[in-house]
């Protein structure tokens, strides 16, 4: 097996597993998502927190490196506010519109188009005005 094929197999497996899990949990269901954000039902909130704890425990016990992460720049907070607002009104963090489409919600294509336009716009805005350092090399 070549080195080009191997990452595709691994990524394909984890992509499929993520889509399957998100669909079985209900992240593509707007009613469930709104119930999570308004604490009307704690199931998905606990899922999110529990996933962080599970991954954290695995990283802590089975890895030795402790990456410090990307630098904190002036764009983190406004970017997170924009993302949180967009997630709440469209139901789409970047993987969720794909999950919604896989469940049969055709308008999710419009959310995906919006995400693509937003990402292209941000790169231009960052090059021209913001100059935020995303710290890609530190990830």
């Amino acid at each position, binding site marked *: 097996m070549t080195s080009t094929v191997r990452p595709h197999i691994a990524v394909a497996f984890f*992509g499929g597993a993520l889509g399957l899990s998100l669909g079985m949990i209900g992240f593509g269901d707007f009613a469930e998502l709104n119930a999570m954000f308004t604490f009307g039902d704690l199931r998905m909130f606990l899922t999110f927190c529990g996933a962080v704890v599970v991954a954290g425990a695995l990283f802590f016990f089975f890895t030795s490196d402790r990456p410090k992460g990307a630098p904190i720049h002036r764009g983190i907070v406004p970017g997170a506010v924009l993302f949180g*607002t967009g997630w709440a009104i469209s139901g789409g963090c970047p993987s969720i519109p794909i999950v919604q489409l896989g469940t049969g919600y055709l308008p999710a294509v419009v959310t995906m188009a919006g995400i693509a336009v937003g990402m292209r716009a941000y790169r231009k805005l960052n090059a021209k005005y913001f100059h935020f350092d995303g710290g890609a090399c530190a990830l």
Partner: protein
Amino acid sequence: MMAYWDWWMGALALGTITFFYHMLVGRRFGVSSSWERVVHWKVEKRAELLDDIAMSDAAAFQAALQEATRAEFGDDSSSVAVAAPPLQPTPPPVSESARLPLSASLTLLVMILVGAFTAAIINGRFELRTDMGPAFADIVVDGPLMWPTLFVGGVMVGIGTRMAGGCSSGHGMSGCSRLQPVSLLATSVFFGTAVVVSTLLLKVI
């Protein structure tokens, strides 16, 4: 119709995916970065060619790197690139953090779709529809206004995730599970904002 997973089942699934992705693929698990690579496929394709050039021609690599830096950060960055010491004519080491093929990023997104479709078939929820369901219509907007609302929401997600440097998988699960300060800050802000906006949508608007 099958019930959704209990919280502990979902937590185990997402937590182990986050960990084993990092261990086997050698990169932080993050969907928005894959999105961005696919959206900017021309630039990313050029970056892949850069990697190849770097292995054989250091001068051409430096020139191409300056061009890519100008494209990313604007003309102000040219002084930084010029001031940088010349590259040694040795190929950069290939580490576990080496760039994934662009097609692998596309594979991730396509397989999320395949996985979600499989889940919808398994739990009996697959239904082709031209709306976003009754909850979206009740809580956010109904009728033709749905289309611009989804588009604007998507634009906010696209700009926001790139400005904040990650999304619910990259910052939320990968970064928070490793207690990285930037991820803890970003996650608390985007989740807190989503709580406020969702509450306003549900109870006020």
